[in-house]
């Protein structure tokens, strides 16, 4: 019975990405077309980098949307009949190589972290070019992310692609991290042929672009380029804003705003409400002493109807808005008060539509116009007005309402909880944030949102976490799952101390320390401690089902497995799987069925192992599919169905890599593929897999996996008769003349084979004797437990065989 080292699940997934940042804002109808500027952007093939650098309100993003829309409609090939047979392939090839894909990324200040930035860049690139390799982001999973490696990998991958990608980074001025600037400069230096970079922002990007500029590889559009010309101003005023002005008024407006699109729009809005004497109004504008934006925005806001004004101010704090959210946030204004009847009566959807129609700085975020946001400058003005008119308490209250709405909506989409928490923080309502996370934490973990939980909990002030032992311990739990043992231990201690001071009203909390300690003990392979804590936790857990029940049963199962007690292990893991299935705990379901399959494999019960794996998922590209297929690959390998094994292993590996995490499972897959390669007669490929796995394990500092890979290499060496290599490995692994520790069974068997090959029979036999003794003891224990089962006869037979073998070994020594 070979006891494989199981691959514990240190989930190391990168934080989930907000999809909205990766979607280019849709082009809007009714705006002034700027074909000249679009044509300049279209000249990107002659340069490496395009920069759009101008203050807010110059229409950078709008122009980019226009360009992308134009490129997409131009790219559709005219198909008027069957393609000509001759040269059809070349034509298709030309189409493909001319195929232009846009990768879009809207940046904000939080993206100033290099690992996060590059995660987003890779996600954006993949949307544009799905054929990019799935493991480009691997260097980012490490505790110390290796940015240079990612940049180099991306550059190389782009060089291999036939298509061209334009990567647009919008609002680059929000990035303030020097290492990040350097890494982007490095990508630009690499200059992969199929990649063109567009950097749009309110300031020149702080990058060393002098060389590019000197070689004519840099294209820049600045404020002067983006200003409205006289013709564009005229078109904007009449077409977009529906204003009919005299030529004199128009010219005055042009002079006043100097072609600044946002200023022009504001001025036009203001003028629309002053239809009486346009010319005098414009002159009056020019006499105003205050800054244009400040004055006009305030004027425009104050001139709206009380209903619209209240709506604008109530929704000013939202980064994005949809009708339901706005209805909720404006609820106070929809009720009559001491001051009078309800201020807002129309549904928010209607008001938003009106704002959009009247060009009141409301911008759609998606093609279906479900979500909108305010243009930056106008939003800023609204927020200032809100603060001035209603004061900080109103602001905090609005943030809290937004937080509550997003929190409720997060049952459908966990990512929305992040927005809820941002609003809670913005309203300085950290307690609210903590109270939003706590009731959802277990379910979120069960759905695998470990990375998000870590981000959200670490954003809370330590005092807030410490005051909530239930939350502190869940923080410890997710930190532990992410391999951050030290911090996990610290927060567990804080949580326990808090509990000791004041018991939690929720009885479940009392069981958490032991439940967590039980799992922590499994990674040390400390079966005694695991069972001790598991039993205590089980005694403290309330009877109603929770995700923690399956956690405890999984720990129990692992402890029994370490002891060689396969039946008990299987029972506990099956119980865990059933519990998980009943409570919608997908993550627990995956872990318990995975380990159950490993136990069945150890018992050579392959069908049952396969059945357990199939309970994880229906297959497919998720983390669940990855575990399932990798497990099924191993079974196929055991059944000697090498083609099926390879297909499953490759599929599983790709699914795992796509999740951006699960390094230990990925290494398991690498080892399996190495074994498969050897079994298929390709030892060179086997070593390639091992080398790749070793590189990952070294980068991520996974010592146990490095040992596993080393042992696998040694076992290959034994088979090849390369015994010197094995000797080296045995020395390095500290196995020579070591005590027979059954937890290193695989290593020891390899060493025993090597010793036998070398003719060192005594050493080989000593190891064999030690392992047999342990197997005997385990089997004896099974027999005692199984006194009444029908298996007893079979077990007794096996025990006899083992005892005979052991006697032989002892006499040979």
């Amino acid at each position: 019975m070979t006891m494989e080292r199981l691959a514990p699940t240190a989930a190391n997934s990168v934080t989930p990405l907000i999809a909205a940042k990766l979607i280019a804002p849709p082009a809007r109808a009714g705006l002034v077309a700027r074909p000249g500027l679009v044509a300049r952007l279209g000249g990107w093939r002659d340069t490496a980098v395009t920069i759009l650098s101008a203050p807010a309100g110059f229409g950078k993003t709008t122009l980019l949307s226009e360009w992308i829309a134009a490129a997409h409609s131009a790219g559709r090939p005219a198909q008027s009949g069957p393609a000509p047979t001759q040269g059809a392939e070349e034509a298709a090839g030309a189409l493909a190589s001319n195929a232009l894909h846009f990768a879009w990324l809207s940046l904000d200040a939080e993206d100033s972290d290099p690992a996060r930035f590059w995660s987003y860049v890779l996600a954006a690139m993949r949307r544009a070019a799905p054929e990019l390799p799935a493991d480009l982001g691997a260097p980012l999973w490490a505790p110390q992310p290796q940015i240079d490696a990612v940049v180099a990998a991306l550059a190389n991958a782009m060089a291999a692609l036939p298509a061209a990608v334009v990567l647009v980074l919008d609002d680059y001025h929000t990035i303030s991290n020097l290492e990040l600037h350097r890494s982007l400069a490095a990508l630009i230096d690499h200059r992969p042929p199929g990649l063109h970079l567009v950097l749009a922002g309110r300031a020149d990007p702080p990058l060393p672009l002098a060389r590019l500029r000197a070689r004519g590889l840099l294209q820049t559009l600045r404020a002067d380029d983006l200003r409205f010309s006289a013709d564009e101003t005229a078109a904007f005023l009449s077409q977009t804003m529906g204003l009919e002005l005299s030529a004199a008024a128009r010219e005055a407006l042009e002079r006043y705003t100097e072609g600044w699109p946002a200023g022009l729009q504001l001025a036009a809005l203001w003028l629309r409400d002053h239809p009486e004497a346009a010319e005098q109004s414009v002159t009056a504008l020019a006499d105003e002493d205050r800054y244009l934006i400040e004055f006009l925005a305030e004027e425009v806001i104050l001139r709206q109807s009380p209903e619209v004004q209240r709506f604008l101010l109530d929704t000013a704090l939202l980064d994005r808005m949809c009708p339901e959210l706005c209805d909720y946030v404006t609820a106070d204004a929809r009720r009559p008060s001491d001051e009078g009847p309800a201020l807002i009566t129309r549904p928010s959807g209607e008001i938003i539509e009106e704002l959009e129609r009247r060009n009141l700085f409301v911008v759609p975020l998606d093609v279906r116009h479900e979500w909108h946001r305010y243009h930056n400058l106008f939003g800023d003005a609204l927020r200032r007005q809100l603060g001035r008119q209603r004061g900080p308490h109103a602001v905090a209250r609005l943030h809290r309402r937004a937080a509550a709405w997003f929190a409720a909506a997060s049952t459908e989409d966990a990512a929305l909880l992040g927005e809820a928490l941002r609003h809670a923080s913005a309203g300085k309502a950290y307690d609210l944030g903590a109270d939003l996370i706590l009731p959802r934490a277990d379910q979120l973990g069960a759905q695998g949102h470990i990375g998000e939980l870590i981000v959200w909990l670490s954003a809370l002030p330590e005092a807030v976490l410490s005051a909530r032992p239930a939350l502190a311990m869940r923080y410890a739990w997710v930190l532990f799952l992410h391999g951050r043992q030290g911090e996990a231990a610290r927060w567990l201690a804080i949580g326990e101390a808090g509990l000791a001071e004041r018991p939690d009203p929720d009885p479940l909390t009392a069981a958490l320390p032991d439940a967590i300690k039980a799992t922590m003990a499994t990674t040390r392979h400390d079966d005694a401690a695991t069972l001790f804590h598991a039993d205590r936790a089980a005694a403290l857990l309330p009877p109603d089902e929770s995700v923690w029940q399956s956690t405890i049963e999984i720990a129990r199962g692992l402890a029994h497995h370490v002891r060689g007690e396969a039946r008990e292990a299987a029972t506990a893991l099956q119980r865990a799987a059933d519990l998980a299935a009943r409570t919608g705990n997908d993550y627990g379901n995956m872990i318990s069925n995975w380990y159950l399959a490993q136990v069945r494999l150890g018992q050579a019960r392959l069908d049952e192992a396969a059945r357990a794996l199939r309970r994880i998922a229906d297959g497919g590209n998720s983390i669940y599919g990855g575990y399932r297929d990798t497990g099924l690959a191993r079974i196929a390998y055991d059944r000697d169905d090498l083609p099926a094994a390879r297909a499953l292993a490759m599929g599983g590996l790709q699914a795992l890599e796509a999740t951006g995490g699960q390094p230990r499972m990925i290494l398991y897959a690498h080892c399996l593929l190495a074994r498969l390669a050897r079994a298929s007669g390709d030892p060179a490929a086997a070593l390639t897999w091992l080398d790749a796995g070793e590189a990952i394990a070294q980068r991520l500092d996974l010592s146990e996996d490095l040992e596993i890979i080393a042992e696998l290499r040694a076992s290959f060496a034994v088979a090849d008769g390369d015994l010197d290599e094995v000797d080296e490995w045995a020395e390095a692994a500290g196995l020579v003349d070591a005590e027979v520790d059954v937890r290193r069974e695989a290593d020891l068997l390899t060493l025993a084979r090597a010793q036998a090959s070398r003719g060192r029979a005594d050493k080989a036999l000593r190891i064999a004797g030690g392992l047999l003794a342990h197997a005997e003891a385990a089997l004896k224990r099974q027999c005692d437990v199984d006194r009444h089962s029908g298996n007893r006869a079979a077990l007794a037979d096996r025990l006899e065989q083992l005892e005979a073998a052991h006697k032989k070994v002892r006499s040979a020594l």
Partner: protein
Amino acid sequence: MEHKIAGEAFYEIRIEGHLGPEWAGWFEELTITRAPDGTTLLAGMVADQAALHGHLARIRDLAMPLLTVAYQRARGP
């Protein structure tokens, strides 16, 4: 009062500390002078406000204390 969004202008920026010559490529079109009082002067024509803020962002990201930013004149010498 005319609201001007400034175009090309000559600016002088002074920062605390000496900026090494390796940074010249990051501050295009600015002349970098290391002064004996331990400060560095970056001076030159700046295309517009966005370009100026680009330079200021670089200085911010280098964490070198900003001492003065002085507008000297519009257009060149």
